């Protein structure tokens, strides 16, 4: 009786040691980002396996389906941002993978507008305020030069941020695992207490 729980605790700890905590989990993830006038999505299981041929559906914020498609063999799917009058708020991208797995990702409205709407509006406003037509070309040229440079300079940073965002979603900390085991022992402790009082 003395060393029975002891032995099994060792077994549990062996299991914990055996696994690489960050990677081994069981759910699907979808990750979407805006680049240019397209939205790119990546779908994968937590262990890094790609979701191949899985259905992707895109909804607006009212829940109307805008489009759907299948992921390719790298789990990628991309689509053009629907025109402004269709999307008022953000977009919701829903992934339905095999065996009852489902995940969603919401692209906030400001991320989408930043690309399509706002910038254009701003230029046009400014242009009309300054009015002479000579400026129109110049301003647009400057705009495109700045954009190109910024795109290039920011590319590695954006890529890194994507990775960070992704890894945050996937991460299962050892605290959660140990905590979970603690909860279980606690819950059954409480049940045991009530059962023992009854008898």
């Amino acid at each position, binding site marked *: 009786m003395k060393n029975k729980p002891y032995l099994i605790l060792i077994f549990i700890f062996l299991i914990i040691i055996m696994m690489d905590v960050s990677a081994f989990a069981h759910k699907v993830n979808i990750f979407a980002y805006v680049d240019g006038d397209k939205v790119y999505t990546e779908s994968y299981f937590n262990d890094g396996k790609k979701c191949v041929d899985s259905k992707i559906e895109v909804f607006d914020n009212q829940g109307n389906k805008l489009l759907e498609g299948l992921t390719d063999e790298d789990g990628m799917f991309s689509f053009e941002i629907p025109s402004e009058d269709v999307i008022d708020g953000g977009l919701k991208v829903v992934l339905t993978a095999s065996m009852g797995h489902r995940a969603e990702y919401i692209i906030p409205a400001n991320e989408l507008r930043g690309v399509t709407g706002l910038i254009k509006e701003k230029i046009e406003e400014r242009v009309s305020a300054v009015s002479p037509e000579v400026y129109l070309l110049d301003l647009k040229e400057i705009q495109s030069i700045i954009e190109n440079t910024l795109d290039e300079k920011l590319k590695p940073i954006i890529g890194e941020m994507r990775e960070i965002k992704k890894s945050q979603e996937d991460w299962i900390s050892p605290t959660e695992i140990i905590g979970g085991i603690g909860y*279980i022992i606690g819950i059954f*402790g409480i049940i045991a207490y009530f059962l023992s009082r009854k008898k």
Partner: protein
Amino acid sequence: MHISEGILSAPVLITGVSLTATAVGYGLKKMDYKQMPKVAILSSVFFVASLIHVPLGPSSVHLILNGVTGVLLGWSAFPAILVALALQGVLFQFGGITTLGVNTFNMALPAIICFYLFNRGVRSENNFIVLILAFVCGFLAVLLSGVMVAAALVFTGEPFIQAAKLVIIAHLPVMILEGVLTAFCIGFLRKVRPEILNV
């Protein structure tokens, strides 16, 4: 094998919840408080097992260990699996809260079936028979869970044969691995702590 939120229709979810509630109630009623430590430990094992990914086969799968849970716990497997799945849902976002009923039933019913099928067998005198039966027990529990997941998915419009094939083929490596693990586990307990096998 955790079915995510938003996949199943309301009738399936409600059926799952009511069946699970009944079975958990029965399990708790039958449970002796002296068995509590064993139930808590196996619940912890089940909780952690889903983090162990099996890197074989076409899809992303993990250990389930409902066979060994069932054969060691009998009806107490229902509360044990419910608690473990609830914590997996909250802490790791596997499955979900609304699908808890269905997921618990899918995992725990095969556990009970295995308990009734192999309860006597794994306690027999012959070492060889015990190991073979334990293997079949671990194998069958996962297989039955796969069939039940497929059955739940039928109501979402996936044809049964196709869904079942997908789930079962994906879990074939898990079935074999669980069979071996169950045999190892029962064989070990039999030598070291035979009294733990008494339900």
